């Protein structure tokens, strides 16, 4: 993985590497029809390349665009029949079936109310269609998915911070664990749910994430040291 340069929309990247005519483009890039072997940039940010043929842009996007198989945190906003409408921060509310929970049948449905928070997986995310969520994996097991406890606290963070927190090599959550006893669910949609034994701990954790978000450019471990 290597960073090439800072790019702006409209810029054309030349000499694109491809394998048997195939180049994999990530977010912020578009095929350039006018010239072969070039790509068009559509988002400002840092251009990255991973050999042999993957390109993507890392910028700061604030609005979540649903992607298939993303793990998200959402709030139930509507309940009608067997279908739930979930706010996941995208343009359209996602739909979640009451039968898509572990152990749910037509007769025995889970107790989910409007205002509840769910940790779910995107089964389907196409720009022409409403996004669809499930709370089970392909073996109908819930695993970590499902309704999150009402004792917890939901907060919004930037998409970049959510991605950084989900990075397994990120030391922030681990070092916070030495100090506090807490439960956390991070959605790639920039929603974060925390629960701790004491309200004071929740407030402290909230403050940590807010400060980290503001200092997004600086190194996370540095911020971490200053807080703890």
């Amino acid at each position, binding site marked *: 993985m290597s960073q090439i340069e*800072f790019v*702006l*929309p*409209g810029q*054309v990247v030349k000499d694109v590497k491809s394998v048997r005519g195939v180049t994999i483009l990530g977010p*912020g890039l*578009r095929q350039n029809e006018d010239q072969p072997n070039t790509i*068009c940039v*559509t*988002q*400002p*940010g840092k251009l990255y390349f991973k050999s042999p043929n993957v390109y993507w842009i890392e*910028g*700061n*996007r*604030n*609005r979540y*665009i649903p992607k298939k198989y993303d793990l998200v945190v959402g709030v139930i906003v509507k309940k009608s029949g067997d279908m739930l409408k979930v706010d996941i921060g995208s*343009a*359209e*509310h996602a739909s979640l079936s009451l039968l898509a929970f572990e152990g749910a049948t037509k007769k025995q449905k889970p107790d989910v109310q409007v205002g509840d928070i769910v940790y779910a997986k995107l089964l389907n995310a196409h*720009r*022409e269609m409403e996004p669809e969520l499930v709370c089970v994996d392909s073996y109908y097991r819930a695993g970590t998915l499902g309704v999150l406890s009402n004792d917890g606290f939901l907060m919004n963070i930037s998409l970049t911070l959510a991605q950084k927190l989900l990075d397994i090599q990120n030391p922030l959550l681990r070092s916070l664990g030495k100090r506090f006893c807490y439960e956390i669910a991070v959605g790639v949609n920039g929603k974060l749910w925390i629960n701790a034994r004491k309200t004071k701990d929740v407030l402290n954790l909230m403050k940590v994430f807010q400060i980290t978000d503001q200092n997004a450019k600086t190194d996370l471990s540095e911020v971490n040291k200053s807080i703890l």
Partner: protein
Amino acid sequence: METELTKSTFSCKLGILSRPDGSAILSKDNTTVIAGIYGPIEVKLQKLLIDKASVECHYRPKSGLPGIEDRMHESIIRNTCEASLVASLHPRTAVLVAIQELQNSGQLISCAVNAVCLACLHAGIDMKFMFGAVTCFSNGVEMSLNPPAQTHIKAVFVFVFDSTEKRVIASHTKGIFTKEQFEEAVELCRSGSDQVFDYYKKVLTN
């Protein structure tokens, strides 16, 4: 003839508003505008387009309610955004542009357009190209990119250019001028647009 835009007159700050996805405050020669972008967001049924995102623009003047002239500013900005944003990526959604005028010293349209472009860049919304607007003043004999000290202005030209091929994507004129003067103004503004794009780059890389 003044062909150089004085660079130091631009000042900008990104992300000053917390609610919008992208926001910018831009000031140039005592003309100041705040722009905010929301998008892609949920769309009203009557404005829904099945093949692309619809662009909505709300312009607020310094005081009072928006009037007819403000509606025209809205339409210029909306058309510019429609040309620049990759609307087909997000069908059945809306992109909302909100602009608040704070100070006006004669370059309001170009300042508003540039603020909207910076807000779009801050929001990280997909764009085909960036756009930059330049205002040109004519006193009948000479052209200038900076507002002249004396008040004998015969015509004002505003042109919006794209960042890739420097094509004109919007134009707005006021006053009396000849065809030659118009063409001269286009070329002068085109040369001035480079500085606007350089400024965008400087703001974003910092």
